[in-house]
């Protein structure tokens, strides 16, 4: 198992790491790059806590090998607040009470981000489907759905 140099764009900045290309993206993020906002909840793509954007699409980083990330672009929760300004989703999650233990929150917000990038004004059914791969054990999802709606209208108005 040789370590290789792998270059990709992480949160809008170029990074270069040395690792085995068969490592999981979630491990590289958490253990090599100390970006622990991306969580691991199940290790098999069922819970969505490790969701990141890969070239703008939501993926489970526990099921992506770092070798496949070379020359591509990854956005994690830490990169969402561009220039220190919170994304409307982040603000809405706080104000709507969509955060409890918060362990699902980063993945949830990233999935919602992917949705809002594709659909400016999603229906409730579209929101539910977009986050159906993100399990939350605390909130019952109601306030999460509301937060996504609030963020969508804030973007439309803003």
């Amino acid at each position, binding site marked *: 198992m040789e370590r290789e140099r792998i270059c990709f764009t992480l949160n809008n900045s170029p990074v270069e790491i040395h690792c085995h290309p068969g490592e999981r993206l979630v491990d590289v993020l*958490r*253990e090599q790059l*100390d*970006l*622990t*906002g*991306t*969580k691991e*909840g*199940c*290790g*098999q793509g*069922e*819970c969505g*806590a490790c969701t990141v954007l890969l070239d703008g699409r939501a993926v489970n980083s526990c099921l992506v090998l770092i070798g496949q990330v070379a020359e591509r672009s990854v956005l*994690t*929760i*830490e990169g*969402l*607040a561009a220039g220190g300004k*919170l994304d409307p*989703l*982040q*603000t809405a*999650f*706080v*104000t709507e*009470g969509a*955060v*409890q*233990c*918060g*362990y*699902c*929150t*980063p993945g949830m*917000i990233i999935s919602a981000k992917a949705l809002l990038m594709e659909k400016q004004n999603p229906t409730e059914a579209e*929101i*539910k*489907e977009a*986050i*159906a*791969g*993100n*399990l*939350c*054990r*605390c*909130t*019952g*999802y*109601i*306030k*999460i*759905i509301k937060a996504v709606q609030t963020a969508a209208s804030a973007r439309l108005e803003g």
Partner: protein
Amino acid sequence: MNLRWIGKPIPRQDAWTKVTGEARYMSDLSMPNMLWGRVLRSPHPHALIKSLDISEAVACPGVVTVLTHHDVPGLNAYGIVVQDQPVLCSDKVRFVGDAVAVLAAESKEAAAHALELIKVEYELLPGVFDPEVAMQQSSPAIHAKGNVLRHSKVHHGDVEAAFADSAVVVEREYRTSRPISAFLETEGGMAMFGADGVLTVYCGAQYPDRDVIQVARALGLERDKVRMVSSLVGGGFGGKDEITVQIYLALLALNTKRPVKLVLSREESMVTGWKKHPMIVRMKTGASIDGTLLAHEVSIISDTGAYASLGGTILHSAMEHCSGPYRVPNVKVEGHCVYTNNSISGAMRGFGVNQVTFAMETQMDILAEELGLDRLDIRLKNGLKDGDKGALGSLLVTAMGPVQTLQAAGQTELWSQRETYKAEPSRPWKKRGVGLAAAIKGCGLGFRMPDFGAASVELLPSGFFRVRVGCPEIGQGNTIAFAQMAAEVLGCSVDQVEVVTGDTGETPDSGTSTASRSIYVAGNAIIDAATKVVELVEQGISARLVVDVEEVELGEAEVRAGDAILSYLDVAALLLQNGQTCYASGRFDAPKATEEVPSVYGLPHLVFGTNAHVALVEVDTMTGQVEVLRISAVSDAGRVINLQGLEGQSEGGAVMGMGYALTEDIIIDQGMVRTLNFNNYIIPTAMDTPPISTTVVEVVEKTGPFGAKGVGEVVCISITPAITNAIYDAVKVRVTELPATIERVLAGLQDG
């Protein structure tokens, strides 16, 4: 009472770092030079350990230490009530997942590899998986003292005579499933041994001060040489109340003198995590012709699995709540809590009350049907009030909410317009039904256990106030409620208050974040401490600025002292630089009932929260699929401290209880856990979640902080029978076994 902050839906302070990913959970921590720990676990449900050979693992490159029972310096056992669970098994394993060895290595890969090199020879013993079989004398003994952990009986009134007087008697057997907390953050953390000789264990948990006792006892250390840091926690729900991996972390750090990290995989968590007790509940309930409950005879057999943990206490909690929120004058209840080789059962949101409330609320619907009564009326007629006796005969003297809560449930649109909601199913082959149920749940630890809150409040040099409370923030939002209560007393804005929880090096022992208690006990302690700090500040300013104490008033952003206006920063400078103490500790001892229920240790509870649920379901009569379309929750939490937080608890509790009703079950086959991850352990997703509305009924509890009671558990209890009762309303299939899976419902449809 004119309240400034209490009851307001103020967003929680800790949410800001959680939405940016900055928040560090204990399983996020890492240190330079850190090792990775792993636990070797038994593959057999019941076996003797004949030999244990770690030599190859020790010699494996990258492995730093491999520890077995020989290396546990103190008591090789843990358990909140009785210590019957080995830290590392020495002679025998009692469930699949029992810990046999722990190791630490330079990398995760080396640790995983070394695990495979430990050689354990087992001699298989016959396993005991059925609790009713386990109770028999002839069954193989799982523990030397036998398989019955607890056997308790209570009888008050004259049950036989009351059954004879009853117009109708309903007798049914109910079987409940084995759900697991399934917090998103699995059990894990990091430990390190400091230069000061203090071992610090960072591990998400619900009661760090008790974890210190258990860790110190196992490691043979003085308690002041162990520090537990428990907040933040990525979900608890009871499953992080008992020890999870704290002792393994501590053992490895102590032996290697290096930081060690250990995080369970989801599969390990599913196999070794604490589950809700499956219970067999047999109920015989008699009522008069007008629906007045007369007699109730209950037998509970509870499967605690391989070790005790809180099994006995949970059995007693189930017994205490066995008539749900209803008054029955004659009750006979017998409970057995039994060891088996089925994994381990322990605390999980509801603490034995979910199981018996599911049974009781089904009984109520059957009674209503047999007597031709309205389902709400029969409940209202029997709802517990202040001054009534509870199921075990103890007098209820605090604010009881069942009647008010049920009345509010009856007024919800979903209940009052239920025929309209049911009228038009989405497909011709589907049918709709509406169900109703209510629950009470005791807050706090009951009669015997010390049940206290402790907190400190201090003015910091920055002009902020710091509140310290031991009860960890496990996601429920107690920290924002603590900040609101402190600000209410102090007079300052909530933003002016910061709350620290769950660190035995920093926070006073305030008991456990369980039993719906942290708001109640810690809130009262905060009020005590904050009141003292207000006095200290007022007196200090009065002395320094020479104004009457009456003329000093703490306001939202500033303090008025006669004609002078000071910022809090000014106040801090004025007082602290002159050596004035602006720190106070507060304490609250939860009131207890005047007498214990005879023959069941630790009961009764004194304060109860109430909840009611109305649920609309649609059942596919061809497939058995049940869809919950709408839920109305009614919550009596006493005075609401934070409306947003209460709604969050209500919505999350309803969805957890919905999972309990329909899908969640850890399936164990001959001791082997078969539901190892979320692919087969099915918790509700956003797509399964219906609209949920929450109505608040404030039956104010005079001993509670600002009148508050606990709410964390009661929100998840009555939803389960509300759903199963709705299934019956839709398709006349009576659910007596949880979960009401698609196939069980279809089988009921085909039988009917």
